[in-house]
């Protein structure tokens, strides 16, 4: 049963959990967390299994309701979607372990049950977006995920509803543009199925309507992935959301938009269309490069750790956008690998910010000092490792993202983009070492001295362990990158961009 239904299982598991949690938790509130964890674990197991399934038997198609593709909704498990779902579900699992205590601390108890239900709904949406082979279905899941996310953001700080509202307005417009693009595509081709469209589009040709459709869809995804200059919603949303939300949203949320972009550009329209017929890929890469610099520079000016990480996310999403925009196999490999790498790094960093908030009551950079580090040595160590990875030092994952992206830019002879990538890793060094210096070198401040006498007070194991696991994975995944890239990722490369390493 599992093999035949493999593509649909992960979203269905999360959906089931989202439905059962409000019912089961009527009597026992604690069940909400238990069920959420169980669902996340099951989904993670299924999606890891899916990777092996794809490697073994190639792409798996799944027809909802038994209807064949152009009519019915189809789910497609190919190397790319298998990889992305595995990444997001594993990240979500680790973050959820950490979330129990932060949710308990951030939210009043009556909100716990709806919170976990919404997390499940959001994850269901994300999985659906990645796995579906149907453009309208993608829209529905996009909105499911976004609506849940608005709710998850709004339960944070005092200012969080404003951030959520701003995100909602921009997100709705993004979704609307996407839907409009789908409409144009449907009117001109009569199909909503991605594989079907891929076959039809060459015959339709580069009609203005098709180009408009593509632009609208790219605009929609650009907003969801916070591609510069469509990033306006992101900093506030990340900063004011509760810890658990930001550490779920940062590694996963924007990547989904990037995934959608990748799908549409290279798997539906094809590389020739998006680079030659309409030079959209080039536009994306320039925007991404601008975003890299903008995000990095803005990150330097921030005082709040979460806000700094948010701007750094804009820059990192720029890496992914740049890799996509390069429209060559090495760039795409770099972009997709960076989805994993940045997911791990950002999850780790946001968990660290959560740990600081838990123990110190704040995560303001200017208030951090060596007293904080002495109290939380492991958390600080995890931060340092993740920061080194963000800078891109081997053998952490950040280096390997940079390596593939650098290969991609050089292959295109895009020296400016190469310079941007390299410069951004130096800018990363500036703003991360600002924090590291404070943590390790700045003598403890007066009012902290009293607390310092308490000695070490690291966060609880259920928070520390996920942080450390993620930090450690930065090195392990880094060393294993060849296995991932050669074993799995080269197989996803779209037609026209195949590549074999020497």
């Amino acid at each position: 049963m599992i093999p035949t239904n493999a593509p649909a299982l992960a979203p269905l598991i999360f959906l089931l959990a989202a439905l059962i949690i409000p019912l089961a938790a009527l009597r026992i509130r604690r069940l909400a967390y238990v069920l959420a964890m169980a669902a996340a674990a099951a989904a993670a197991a299924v999606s890891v299994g899916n990777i092996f399934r794809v490697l073994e038997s190639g792409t798996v198609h799944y027809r909802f309701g038994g209807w064949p593709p152009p009519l019915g909704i189809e789910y497609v498990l190919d190397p790319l979607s298998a990889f992305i779902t595995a990444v997001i579900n594993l990240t979500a699992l680790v973050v959820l372990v950490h979330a129990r205590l932060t949710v308990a601390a951030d939210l009043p108890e009556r909100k716990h049950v709806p919170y976990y239900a919404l997390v499940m709904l959001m994850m269901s949406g994300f999985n659906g977006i990645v796995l579906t082979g149907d453009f309208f279905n993608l829209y529905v899941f996009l909105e499911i995920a976004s609506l849940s996310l608005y709710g998850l953001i709004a339960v944070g700080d005092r200012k969080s509803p404003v951030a959520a509202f701003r995100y909602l307005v921009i997100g709705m417009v993004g979704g609307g543009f996407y839907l409009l693009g789908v409409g144009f595509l449907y009117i001109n081709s009569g199909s909503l199925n991605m594989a079907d469209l891929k076959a039809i589009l060459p015959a339709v040709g580069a009609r203005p309507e098709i180009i408009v459709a593509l632009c609208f869809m790219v605009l929609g995804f650009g907003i969801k992935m916070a591609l510069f200059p469509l990033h306006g919603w992101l900093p506030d949303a990340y900063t004011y959301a509760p810890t658990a939300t930001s550490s779920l949203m940062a590694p996963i949320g924007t990547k989904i938009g990037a995934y959608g972009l990748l799908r549409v550009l290279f798997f539906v329209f094809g590389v020739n269309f998006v680079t030659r017929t309409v030079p959209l890929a080039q536009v994306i890469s320039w925007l991404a490069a601008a975003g890299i610099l903008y995000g990095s520079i803005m990150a330097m000016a921030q005082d709040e750790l979460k806000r700094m990480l948010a701007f750094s996310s804009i820059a990192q999403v720029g890496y992914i956008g740049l890799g996509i925009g390069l429209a060559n196999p090495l760039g795409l490999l770099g972009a997709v690998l960076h989805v994993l790498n940045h997911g791990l790094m950002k999850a780790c960093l946001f968990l660290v910010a959560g740990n600081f908030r838990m123990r110190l009551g704040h995560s303001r950079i200017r208030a951090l000092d060596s007293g904080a580090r002495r109290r939380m040595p492991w958390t600080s160590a995890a931060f340092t490792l993740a920061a080194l990875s963000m800078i891109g030092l081997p053998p952490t994952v950040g280096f390997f993202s940079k390596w593939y992206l650098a290969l991609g830019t050089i292959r295109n002879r895009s020296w400016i983009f190469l310079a941007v990538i390299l410069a951004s890793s130096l800018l990363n060094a500036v703003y991360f070492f600002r924090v590291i210096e404070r943590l390790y070198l700045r003598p403890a401040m007066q009012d902290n001295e009293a607390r310092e006498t308490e000695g070490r007070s690291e966060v609880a194991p259920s928070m520390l362990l996920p942080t450390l696991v993620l930090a450690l994975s930065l090195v392990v995944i880094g060393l294993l990158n060849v296995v991932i890239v050669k074993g799995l990722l080269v197989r996803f490369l779209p037609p026209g961009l195949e590549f074999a390493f020497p």
Partner: protein
Amino acid sequence: MSAPAAPSLLPLLAVLVSLAAVPLILLSSRRPRLRETWTLAAAAAKFGLVLALLPGALQGRIAVFGLFEIVPGVRLELRADPLGVLFALVASGLWILTSLYSIGYTRGLNEHKQTRYFAFFAVCLSATVGIAFAANLVTFILFYEILTIATYPLVIHKETPEAVSAGRKYLAFTLSAGVLLIAAAAWSFLLVGDLDFKPGGIFTGLALAGKTAVPLFLLFLGGVGVKSAVMPLHSWLPAAMVAPTPVSALLHAVAVVKAGVFGLVRVVVFVFGPDLLRRFHLDSVLIVLAVTTILVGSLLALRQDNLKRRLAYSTVSHLSYIVLGTALLSGPAIIGALLHLAFHATMKITLFFCAGAIYVNLHRENVSELNGTGKIMPWTMAAFTLGSLGLCGVPPLNGFVSKWFLGSAAVGSGRPLLAGVLILSGLLNAAYLLPIVQRSFFRRGSGLEGRREASPWMVAPLVLTAVLSLALGLFPGTFHQLAVRVAAGLFGG
């Protein structure tokens, strides 16, 4: 190199042994003696392992250990070729002495955070030996960047604002260099599809155009030029002198800067190859840079009053001896360069040890305060004298041997002017080092009543390195053979 490759665990163990000591050092943070024992044990083990690789390297059996693919198409691979063994031998051998000296130094000053200090020192040595044995560019970059980061905590060890700003400067320079190196490696990978170091270069099969080769070489030069302190990329080195003296001694006279120069040798002859350099006159670029650095470095050293800064500028200038030797692209020159790589290490480390001993014992760090110190610290200053004379190139010290090779190679390659530069630089060396000797022995000092020689933990290593300088000057055999092997592999004969 026609030499057969023999799979062996030794290179890997030599890299890992000091890394293995790190957790032990961290765990024994509350027991200083145990911690120091671990450090010394690791140092001795490392030296032993490198020594075990020596016979093979001399006979042309190259120990190789390949792990796994680190990026597609490139394996994480260690390869103990003669060049690598030479560098590893210098670094690991001097680590033993530096460890002994560090114990005396940190105890003498009652330094804080000694655990962090010893732990990162061990990491640095791992990275250095990793650089020495790296079989390809990616492995090289991996250890190169680890070295960058592991040195940072040592540079800022004092945690004063001055140290922190020096640390920033250090990071700014070395991290920038790192990204340039990565770019250069990525570009080469796309051109060749393989990044293994090969004698004569990896681009041999390609007809590289000038508009590719020149920018690529400049990227590489930027990458390795910072750590090798080629002007104008040198200014982090004097700044980094705020670090504790053993750090300056081993890392900023031996491991880090020599890693840079070593990288330059690798890039020039094992990546680019002499033919390509000559074709685009890149060797001349290097020569000009090296000569400028030698002379300007020496002149700047003259102006420094702070002893460690003076030594730092001296290091800058001496590193370019090696650059010069490499740039000449001939067998004798490369022999001279490699000998200088090894011999400058023993001499400069002696001088730094002396500077540290004076600082710990008398809390003086300026040249102008050293009057009369020779009377109360005779062993230290005697060693200092030997080291200084060696750097000036006075026979029979080892500095003479390497300079002789360099000078004769310069003449042999039809550039006698360069030999003149070496002689001039020797005179400048004398001008900035010998006054210190003169002050300490022949001038009357003040405020020295009741002071005695530094602790034996410190004096013994510095005397040993001074004696080593003398011994290597008289019997340069092993290093010479290694260097000859390298040269033979590169230029034949």
